[in-house]
């Protein structure tokens, strides 16, 4: 569900494992668990930011609780997002606004739910449609998912990639969010690039193109590129193997989730690189794309995209292996704070990794060439991130 819900929702799991067990067996409802038996773990671990810690921190904390056995649904991968106290708080406020100084409990509930509905109504409706539980009455069950990718095409200050005349904007580029994006910053960056940055910076390049004239498409460069594209499409069609495109995509996804997901380590990443390579080789021998290339063919579209993901996935794991530090959404199990106030939190290594990894294609994702852009911090002091 949307992170905006963390504004008013409180996140918790039961304090006692017996309660977790009873919930899983359907013998206990979350609403029946008393306050003292709930663990509001974000508020406990991060008193200053509470439920509003950034998403990488919140995701890892949810994973930590679930890995420890406190997950509250059948899969063991869910924590509660609870609006009860927000409903009460808003309900009392609303009653006062309406001149009702002694509202009954049911009135408070009614007013509070109205306020929540005005703020988040469509999200609540979405949840109810999917889970068939009323989130106004019982806490939602949530778990982190992949939502946004901070990495992307390398660009300079003008948003130009390392190909002259080729630009990248929005989520496709890498430039603004570092290793973790804050909520509500994706829309900001997409529109900043599109409305206010690129329209200016592109002029710097195009000013040298005013005498170029129209560019013909009947040149050898276009011939070659077009031939490459059609050859590849025909190749995909003609493999005529036994497995669907989704089969390979799912296998790739599984490796990524297990080995290159919220927690990563050296041996897991090395294994992922090997496995993804294997899946890719198998894909090019055994994928089945029905139909032809001469018309609408959604399986062919998917096949082309999954073929690209199978290359990107390997580079992804290689990059994660190279970055032997924890930062933002990239958490290396080898790099955590061992003691002190920040015990268990991600540990950055500014001495060795204060750079952007920019990978150059060499024909094989596993042998991509690493270039570094050193990051300079002149206006912000480089220090351990703390949301305590």
């Amino acid at each position, binding site marked *: 569900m949307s992170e*905006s819900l*963390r504004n008013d929702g409180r996140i918790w799991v039961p304090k006692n494992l017996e309660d977790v067990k009873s919930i899983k067996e359907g013998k206990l409802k979350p609403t029946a668990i008393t306050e003292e038996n709930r663990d509001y773990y974000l508020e406990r671990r991060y008193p200053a*930011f509470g439920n*509003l*810690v950034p998403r990488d921190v919140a995701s890892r904390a949810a994973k930590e609780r679930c890995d420890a056995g406190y997950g509250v649904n059948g899969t063991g991968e869910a924590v509660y997002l609870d609006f009860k106290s927000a409903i009460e708080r808003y309900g009392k406020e609303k009653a006062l606004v309406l001149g009702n100084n002694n509202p009954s409990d049911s009135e408070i509930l009614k007013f509070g739910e109205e306020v929540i509905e005005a*703020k988040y109504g*469509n999200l609540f409706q979405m949840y109810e449609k999917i889970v068939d539980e009323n989130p106004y009455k019982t806490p939602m069950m949530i778990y982190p998912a992949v939502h*946004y990718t*901070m*990495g992307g*095409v*390398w660009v*300079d200050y003008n948003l130009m990639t390392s*190909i*002259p*005349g*080729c*630009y*990248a904007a929005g*989520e*496709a580029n890498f*430039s*603004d969010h*570092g*290793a973790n*994006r*804050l909520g509500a910053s994706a829309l900001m960056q*997409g529109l*900043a*690039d*599109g*409305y206010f*940055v*690129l*329209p200016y910076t592109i002029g710097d*390049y195009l000013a040298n*193109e005013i005498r170029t004239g129209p*560019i013909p*498409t009947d040149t050898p*460069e*276009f011939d070659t*590129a077009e031939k490459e594209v059609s050859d590849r*499409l025909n190749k995909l069609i003609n493999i005529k193997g036994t497995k669907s495109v989704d089969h390979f*995509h799912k296998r790739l*996804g599984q490796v990524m989730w297990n080995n290159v997901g919220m927690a990563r380590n050296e041996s897991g990443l090395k294994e992922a690189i090997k496995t993804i390579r294997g899946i890719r080789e198998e894909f090019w021998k055994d994928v089945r794309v029905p139909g032809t290339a001469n018309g609408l063919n959604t399986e062919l579209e998917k096949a082309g*995209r999954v073929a*690209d993901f199978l290359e*990107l996935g390997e580079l992804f*794991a290689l*990059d994660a292996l190279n970055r032997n530090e924890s930062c933002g959404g*990239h958490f290396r199990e080898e790099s955590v704070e061992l003691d002190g106030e920040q015990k268990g939190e991600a540990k*950055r290594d500014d001495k060795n990794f204060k750079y952007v*990894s920019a990978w150059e*294609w060499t024909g094989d994702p596993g042998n*991509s060439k690493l270039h570094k*852009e050193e990051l300079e*911090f*002149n*206006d*912000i002091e480089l220090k351990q991130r703390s949301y305590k």
Partner: protein
Amino acid sequence: MSVIDSKTPEGPIKEKWTNHKNNINVVNPSNKRLIDVIVVGTGLAGGSAAASLAEMGYNVKAFAYQDSPRRAHSIAAQGGINASKNYQNDGDSNYRLFYDTVKGGDYRSRESNVYRLAEVSGNIIDQCVAQGVPFAREYGGMLDNRSFGGVLVSRTFYAKGQTGQQLLLGAYSAMNRQIGKGKIQMYNRHEMLDVVKIDGKARGIIARNLVSGKIERHSAHAVVIASGGYGNVFFLSTNAMGSNVTAAWKIHKKGAYFANPCYT
């Protein structure tokens, strides 16, 4: 391994963007008509870029694999959009938004870019309000804010739980205006399958018409890729099932470096 240059302008961080705009080359209006720009992807970034470039006078060709730009995945963004307008009078500023973003990104982003982002954040809200985006308002009519993770102020503008959709409709309307004027040629249901380089420069793309299967050639003086992220490498993600890395990956294979793929 080599060290690469971000071409960040010199000077104090607060003046970099202003100075840069004052010093870069500018194309005069009558020459903009002579220049074609291809924009691949028409979500918030691509849609707003295509609309702005066309408004300025460039000839734009926009490509989307969807039926319409209105189906871009930006539409699914629920929460909101940040801007350092300090409407809540809680001490917000460009610097604070800049600081929060760099800190939130765990000190792995480029300072100059993030500061610029904070600087233009307020303009985005003004632009969108002018377009008619129905941001949530308080009873008195002022724009409302909510708070989000990783910050201690309230700076998120929102439209219920459908902010992305409303912003996309704004960008799409701006685009449509230019499509109507003939300044944007819209290619729906076209997928870019390669970039064409001539003498080292990006000069066009090869696209496939997804309905007819026909392979097409399109040329331009510059190519903008705004095709979104690659979360679907995980198969399961909150991205739409069609979201893909293909356009970005094709330019990577033709020489564009791919940065920090492990940051998800």
